[in-house]
């Protein structure tokens, strides 16, 4: 057994070891920055992280299943004229509900908090949920057919809420800068937002950024959740 061989083996082992340690350190630092004192807290944190992982996996599975369902539906209706009409109706309803990715011309509104806060009241210099609601209202009033805010599709159950210092849309956090994209008549949408005294003017008053641009061929993602009902019935 010569020394060279020993050195090489030990070197290779240390190499593997440090790789494993680095991977572990990165995983742990991404999981959480603080380790709590008590064992039960640690256990709960563990559970939360595991549940989150499970949720992500389940969501991916759901997406795959939806794709498969779509395919099966198409195959089933290929040779049948009545079910083809039904299929058409289903597709249109899905587009209206926000269950499909849609494409079309429209506008993009860009809102951002003021960069240099120099006002007496810093509250004026951030985008509030009310500002977003105003923009959305204006867009809807001007005939927007599909609206998306930072990747969150607005559907009939969507709510824009203020939760302390964060804004939630569809229950998901969104933050500045906001990209609000809407599909609809470009001239109507653009005109509604650029008229004198429009909601963007009010947002701009204290130094916040608010811009609107015409964008051709916007793709808006489908709603990520599911729309269900429990209490309402059809009135015959």
């Amino acid at each position, binding site marked *: *057994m010569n*020394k*060279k*061989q*020993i*050195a*090489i*083996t*030990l*070197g*290779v*082992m*240390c*190499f*593997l*070891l*440090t*790789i*494993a*340690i*680095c*991977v*572990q350190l*990165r*995983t*742990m630092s*991404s*999981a959480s920055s603080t380790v709590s004192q008590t064992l039960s807290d640690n256990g709960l944190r*563990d559970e939360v*992280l*595991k549940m989150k*992982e499970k949720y992500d996996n389940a969501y991916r599975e759901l997406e795959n299943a939806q794709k498969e369902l779509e395919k099966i539906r198409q195959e089933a209706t290929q040779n049948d004229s009545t079910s083809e009409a039904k299929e058409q109706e289903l597709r249109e309803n899905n587009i209206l509900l926000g269950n499909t990715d849609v494409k079309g011309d429209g506008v993009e509104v860009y809102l951002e908090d003021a960069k240099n806060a120099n006002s007496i009241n810093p509250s004026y210099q951030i985008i509030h949920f009310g500002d977003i609601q105003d923009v959305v209202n204006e867009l809807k009033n001007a005939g927007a057919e599909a609206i998306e805010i930072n990747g969150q599709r607005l559907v009939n159950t969507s709510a824009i809420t203020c939760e302390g210092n964060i804004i939630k849309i569809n229950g998901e956090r969104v933050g500045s800068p906001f990209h609000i994209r809407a599909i609809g008549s470009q001239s109507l949408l653009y005109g509604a937002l650029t008229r004198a005294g429009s909601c963007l003017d009010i947002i701009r008053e204290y130094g916040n950024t608010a811009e609107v641009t015409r964008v051709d061929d916007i793709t808006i993602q489908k709603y990520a959740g599911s729309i269900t009902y429990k209490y309402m019935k059809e009135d015959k």
Partner: protein
Amino acid sequence: MIFIAIILGCIVGALIGVNMPMISYSYSGYLAIAIIAALDSVFGGIASTLKKNFDLKIFVSGFFGNAILSILLTYLGQKLNVDIYLAAIVVFVGRMFNNLAIIRRYYLDKWTEKRQKNKKVEAKEMTKK
């Protein structure tokens, strides 16, 4: 020579490890216990090199065998709802301290020997004068 190889391995490993993809959180517990087992093997390897009874086969099989065995035991413990990994940690860390003690004693002995030799030489020179 050996320490240069170890340091080189650590540096290259750290550079590659930083750019590796992260593993999912549920498996990080298993990786942690494997790291402890491997760390123990490396210290054991260094100690046995110093004692001049290093065996490549024992070292490599210990490195991978201990890591895999501890992962399996952790898995079994989770299924049985017993924290078996605690036992693995106690054993491995205990052995790590043993091996560190061997390494420490080896270098302390070397150091005291050197000093005694120097003293003897000085004493001889004094008598000559």
